[in-house]
C-alpha cells in the first residue's frame, strides 16, 4: 500500500462487481494520479467504492466519486459507495444534497451574426455620439445664457494639467520632429546644392502641418486618455449619479471645462511646438550644412509667409474639440466593471487620433482648393 500522504486506488475484479478500494489522503492536492487512472478505466462490471480506509477527505474526493460514478452509470454500470465513515458521509450529503444538473454554456453565435451585431453596434454608437453632442451643445447654450455656471476654476486647473504640464513632452517630441525632418531633407537637398532651401522646408512643414499634428497626437494620448479614465472612474463610483441628483449637470461640470481648457491650450502648445521644432531643424542645419543661426533666421523671415503659421494655429481649437469630446464621451460610456475603463480609454485615444488625422486631411484639401 502507498504511503498515507497520497491517494491510492486498488481495483479488484470480483465475479459480479469491481471493487475500488480507496485509501490514503483523498484531497485536492493528492488526487491527480487517481483521476488519471479513472480517466483511462473502462468499466466492465458494476462498481463498488470501498472508502473505509480513507484517511482524509475533502470536496475534491467527493467530486471525483460523483463524477466517475455518473460516467460509469452512463456506460451502463451501477456504482455505490460502501464503508463510509460518518463524517465522510456527512460531507458527501452536504456537497450533493440533490442530483446536479449541467447547464450548457451559452451558444456561440456564428460569424455572420457577429458581423451584423458589430455593424449594428457601430451604427448605434454613432447615434449615441450625436446624441451626446446634441446634449453637450444644449448645455453650452444654457451655460452661455447663464455665465455664472461656467466653471472657471475647473477650466484653469485643466489648463495647467493638460497644457502647462505637457510642455516638456511637447518640447521633446517637436524638437525631435524638427531634427528628423532637417536630417532627411539635408541629404536630399545637398544633391542639388540647394542646402539653403532647408529653411523653407522646415519652416513651412513644421508650422503648417507637423507641429499641429504632433501636438494634437501627444495631447490625445496624454489628456484624451486622462479625461476618459477620470470620468470613467467617477461613473464607477457613482459620483456622476451623485452630481445628477444634486442638480449639477455632468456635461456642464465635466465636459465643457475640459473642452474649453483644451481649446485655449492647444493653439498655445502648437505655437510652442513651432518654435522648438524650428530650433531643432536649425541645430541640424547648422551642424550638417554649416548654415549659421543668423542666416537661418534671416532666410526664415522671407521664406515663411505668416499664413502657414496661422493655418497651423487655427487647427488647434478644432483638434482640441475633437480630442476633448471623444475623451469625455468615452468616459461616460464606462460601465460598472473595471475592465471597461481600460477598454474605453483605448477607444478614446484611438478615436481621437483618427479624428485628428482625418480633420487635418480635410483642412489640407479644403485649404489647397481655396489656394491658401
Amino acid at each position, binding site marked *: 500500500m502507498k504511503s498515507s500522504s497520497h491517494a491510492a486506488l486498488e481495483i479488484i475484479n470480483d465475479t459480479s462487481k469491481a471493487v475500488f478500494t480507496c485509501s490514503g489522503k483523498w484531497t485536492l492536492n493528492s*488526487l491527480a494520479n487517481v483521476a488519471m487512472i479513472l480517466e483511462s478505466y473502462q468499466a466492465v462490471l458494476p462498481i463498488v467504492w470501498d472508502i473505509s480506509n480513507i484517511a482524509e477527505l475533502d470536496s*475534491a474526493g*467527493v467530486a471525483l466519486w460523483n463524477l466517475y460514478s455518473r460516467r460509469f452509470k452512463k456506460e451502463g454500470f451501477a456504482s455505490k459507495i460502501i464503508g463510509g465513515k460518518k463524517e465522510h458521509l456527512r460531507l458527501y450529503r452536504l456537497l450533493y444534497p440533490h442530483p446536479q444538473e449541467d447547464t450548457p454554456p451559452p451558444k456561440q453565435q456564428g460569424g455572420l451574426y457577429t458581423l451584423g451585431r458589430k455593424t449594428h453596434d457601430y451604427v448605434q454608437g454613432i447615434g449615441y455620439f450625436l446624441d451626446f453632442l446634441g446634449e453637450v451643445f444644449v448645455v453650452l447654450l444654457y451655460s452661455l445664457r447663464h455665465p455664472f455656471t461656467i466653471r472657471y476654476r475647473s477650466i484653469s486647473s485643466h489648463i495647467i494639467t493638460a497644457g502647462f504640464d505637457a510642455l516638456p513632452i511637447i518640447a521633446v517630441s517637436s524638437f525631435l520632429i524638427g531634427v528628423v525632418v532637417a536630417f532627411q531633407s539635408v541629404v536630399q537637398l545637398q544633391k542639388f546644392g540647394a542646402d539653403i532651401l532647408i529653411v523653407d522646408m522646415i519652416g513651412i512643414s513644421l508650422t503648417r502641418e507637423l507641429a499641429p499634428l504632433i501636438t494634437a497626437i501627444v495631447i490625445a494620448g496624454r489628456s484624451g486618455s486622462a479625461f476618459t479614465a477620470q470620468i470613467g472612474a467617477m461613473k464607477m463610483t457613482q459620483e456622476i449619479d451623485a452630481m445628477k441628483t444634486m442638480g449639477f449637470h455632468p456635461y456642464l461640470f465635466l465636459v465643457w471645462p475640459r473642452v474649453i481648457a483644451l481649446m485655449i491650450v492647444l493653439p498655445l502648445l502648437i505655437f510652442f511646438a513651432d518654435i522648438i521644432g524650428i530650433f531643432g531643424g536649425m541645430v541640424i542645419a547648422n551642424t550638417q550644412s554649416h548654415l549659421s543661426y543668423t542666416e537661418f533666421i534671416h532666410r526664415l523671415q522671407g521664406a515663411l509667409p505668416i499664413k502657414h503659421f496661422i493655418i497651423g494655429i487655427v487647427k488647434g481649437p478644432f483638434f482640441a474639440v475633437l480630442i476633448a469630446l471623444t475623451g469625455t464621451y468615452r468616459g461616460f460610456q464606462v460601465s460598472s466593471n473595471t475592465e471597461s475603463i481600460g477598454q474605453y480609454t483605448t477607444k478614446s485615444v484611438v478615436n481621437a487620433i483618427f479624428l485628428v488625422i482625418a480633420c487635418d486631411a480635410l483642412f489640407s484639401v479644403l485649404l489647397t482648393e481655396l489656394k491658401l
Partner: protein
Amino acid sequence: MNPIVIEAHNIVTSFGDNRIHDNVSCTVRENEIYALLGGSGSGKSTLLREMIMLETPASGSIHVFGENIANLSLVEAQKLRRKWGVLFQSGALYSSLTVGENIALLYKEYTDLPPNLIHELIKLKIDLVGLPSHAIHLYPSELSGGMVKRAALARALALDPKLLFLDEPTSGLDPLSSRQFDALIRQLRDLLGLTVVIVTHDLDTIHHIVDRFVLLGEKKVIAQGTLNEVLTIKHPIVDYFFQKGTHGIQS
C-alpha cells in the same frame, strides 16, 4: 478547549500620525466563528487585513496556524495563503472572468487535476453556496449583490481552506439573504470544520452565528468573549454597540 488558530499579540498600527491599534490582542480558536467588532474606524478591517498579510502592523506579532506571519519566507507565505480563503466586502471577483473561471483559476494554478474534475468541483462549489447552476457562465457584472457574495464565497472555498475570513459578508444584502448567508456559514463551519473570522456590524449575525468576538474601540480591545460574557460588562462602547436599552440585543 480547541487549539489556537490565530493569535494576535500586542498589535500596534498607525497610519501616519493616526494610531489605529494600541496593543490589541486577540485569540481565535479552531472551529469557532469569531467576529471582529467595533464602530466605523475602529480598525477591525485593518486587523483582518493584517491577519491575511495585506498589511503589516508597526509592532506586535500575529501567529496563524502557529507560524509568525512576519518572518515567513516567500514559499512559506504562499503555502499559508492556500490554507485560508478570503471573502472581500465587495466580492472582488475578477471582472474579466466568468464565475466559473474565477473559481477555476485556483484549481488550475494550484492543482494538477484533470479539466472534467475541475469542472465538477466548480459545479459543486457553486451548488454549495446556493447559486443556480447557470451562474457558472455569468460575468460578475451580470450578478446581483447577493449572488456576487455567494460567488465570492464559492471562490474562497475553492481550495477547501480550513480558515475563512469574511469581511462584512452580509453588508448590502436584504435581511432574508443575510440570514440565509449566516445559516450557510454556520453549516459550512459545522460540516467542513472551518474556523471563521468575520468582520461585521450586523447584530443579527452576531446574535445567531458568532461564538466569540472581540470588540474594538478607542484603539484598544474593549471586550472579548461570548455575547453573554460581554453584555455583563459595563462600558459605554458596549452599551452603544449593542444598543442596550433600545431595540438592540438584551442580555
